[in-house]
């Protein structure tokens, strides 16, 4: 076993929180939190060895490329970074991934997606934001559509979702729209989280959890 892991046990990185506490506040068991910690250590030391996930490390993990910028990855990073200090700490990582757990409340998933799309955090998804996101996706996919076509797509969606017709989508309208189109929050569930303990089994040796805490 490498020295890194054994010596760091007592002096955990900034933002480390006890697995028992994180477990009590998320859908994860203590063991799952510890398995996530194995993953977290890997992600958070991939470029800067400081035990914190930086934007480049996040991009490296998602795209195998630390320099690849992506609007949606940026948004997810910002939402994970609850303290807004530019890095994802372990506690933030676990709490945010908790929303993506297959057993997490649907309500939480819907809200998370709303905040994701509310680019300017006004509490509404505005038409301009939706268009910006569609453009970003088309650009990412190398699709070139005429402005007319994009307008048509955005208009159509807005006329379906913006029930009160005030030109923006509020939380309630979003909920109603998602319940009509449940596939919209498919991304909000990560099946991988279900067998996370099998994917990162090293914790079974390192754990300090007492029998009584099980």
């Amino acid at each position, binding site marked *: 076993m490498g020295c890194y892991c054994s010596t760091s046990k007592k002096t955990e990185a900034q933002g480390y929180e006890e697995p028992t506490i994180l477990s009590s506040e998320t859908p994860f068991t203590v063991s799952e939190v510890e398995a996530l910690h194995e993953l977290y250590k890997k992600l958070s030391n991939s470029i800067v060895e400081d035990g914190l996930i930086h934007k480049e490390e996040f991009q490296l993990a998602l795209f195998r490329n630390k320099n690849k910028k992506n609007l949606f990855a940026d948004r997810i990073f910002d939402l994970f970074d609850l303290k807004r200090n530019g890095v994802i700490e372990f506690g933030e990582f676990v709490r945010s991934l908790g929303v993506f757990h297959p057993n997490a409340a649907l309500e939480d998933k819907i809200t998370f997606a709303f905040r994701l799309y509310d680019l300017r955090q006004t509490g509404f998804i505005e038409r301009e934001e939706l268009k910006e996101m569609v453009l970003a996706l088309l650009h990412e996919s190398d699709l070139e559509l005429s402005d007319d076509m994009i307008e048509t797509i*955005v208009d159509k969606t807005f006329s379906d979702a913006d029930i009160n017709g005030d030109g923006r989508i509020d939380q309630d309208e979003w909920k109603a729209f998602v319940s009509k189109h449940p596939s919209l929050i498919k991304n909000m569930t*990560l099946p991988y989280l279900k067998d996370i303990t099998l994917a990162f089994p090293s914790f079974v040796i390192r754990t300090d959890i007492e029998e009584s805490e099980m």
Partner: protein
Amino acid sequence: MEQKGGVLMQRYELGRLLGQGTFAKVYHARNIITGMSVAIKIIDKEKILKVGMIDQIKREISVMRLIRHPHVVELYEVMASKTKIYFVMEYVKGGELFNKVSKGKLKQDDARRYFQQLISAVDYCHSRGVCHRDLKPENLLLDENGNLKVTDFGLSALAETKHQDGLLHTTCGTPAYVAPEVINRRGYDGAKADIWSCGVILYVLLAGFLPFRDSNLMEMYRKIGRGEFKFPNWFAPDVRRLLSKILDPNPKTRISMAKIMESSWFKKGLEKPTITQNEDEELAPLDADGVFGACENGDPIEPAKNSKPCNNLNAFDIISYSSGFDLSGLFEETDRKKEERFTSDKPASIIISKLEEICRRLRLKVKKKDGGLFKLEGSKEGRKGPLGIDAEIFEITPVFHLVELKKSSGDTLEYQKLLKQEVRPALKDIVWNWQGEQPQPLQHGVVQKEEQPSYPGISEVVPQSTA
């Protein structure tokens, strides 16, 4: 918390003891949230550490994660405390197969059915690079429908003798089921050794006793080493031929899995493998007709029967396909992607005729066609039944479409191979680009190697490639 409640991790309620061995105790338990029955194997860490098997166990856990088969007991998750490791596994109701044999030999057709299921399980695991190395009666369980389930696959580090109650069991650690090359402690091929053990098991099912038996252990070793056994007179000629090829003491000339499955005795009455829906922990039942309609039309009752060739994507659908939204990369799962999507600048009619052309060429049956969704089925029997593929076309604009391909049933490796070698090349002239792929695809893992220093203790956790 406390022992009295017997609740583990606020998730499992521990029940009665099912079995006990040197390293482990197995309990029945119930998932408090879902009510599902499971078996939990509790292992004493101290004992494992003493015999130095901890790394092997870690490796085996990662490998078992890739195994999902109707005839293999599934490992759901592991949990751990300072002193114990908990394996949460599929609970199998019907007890050991050998309780049946201990009452006397089986009818040939019954024995064959169990053997077919055993071979299907073992062959599947071998295709994933997992050998059992300890196939024996205690590891063959029956579910409530009388189907075989092989347990302890990949967990050979924990292998042990649990019972000492009868001839058919490995009495006092005698190697009745073990291949000669394993006894001789030569470096051996685990897959070949498994084949030998399957042969011994088949013999026992048909005969009701072991092929190599002797009260003197040394004498038994000698018989195994020479492959010296006799057939009871009720063994039919074709099964004798097969068994002689399996119980060949030379692993180099011993029959292969593929040849066993080609043999006429094996093929007789072969059932289609049971199709399981849960293989990839899908969240929604993929095959439930109408689910699609419910998702895309907002109408749970009426399936899409409009005249349009496919469904429109709304703006939020479109953006939800961003690769920046796909967090599976965090888990290094790019090779295990469930769905692949490509965009096309061809009209729906061209895409459809292309799909039909590919189906004709690859002999895929179109089982269903509904609102842009094609349910396809392979004509060959695969490891887990014929492949089922869903291809679905969505309209972004009349001139831009998105096509999503995913496996709905069958063996994942077979699917990936078909997709990579046949389907993707054939689609070439209608594909604008494949979603989430770099212009020059970089070898997964290579980039990381360059950019991150290696840190021991973590690299070993990287899941092994499924190839």
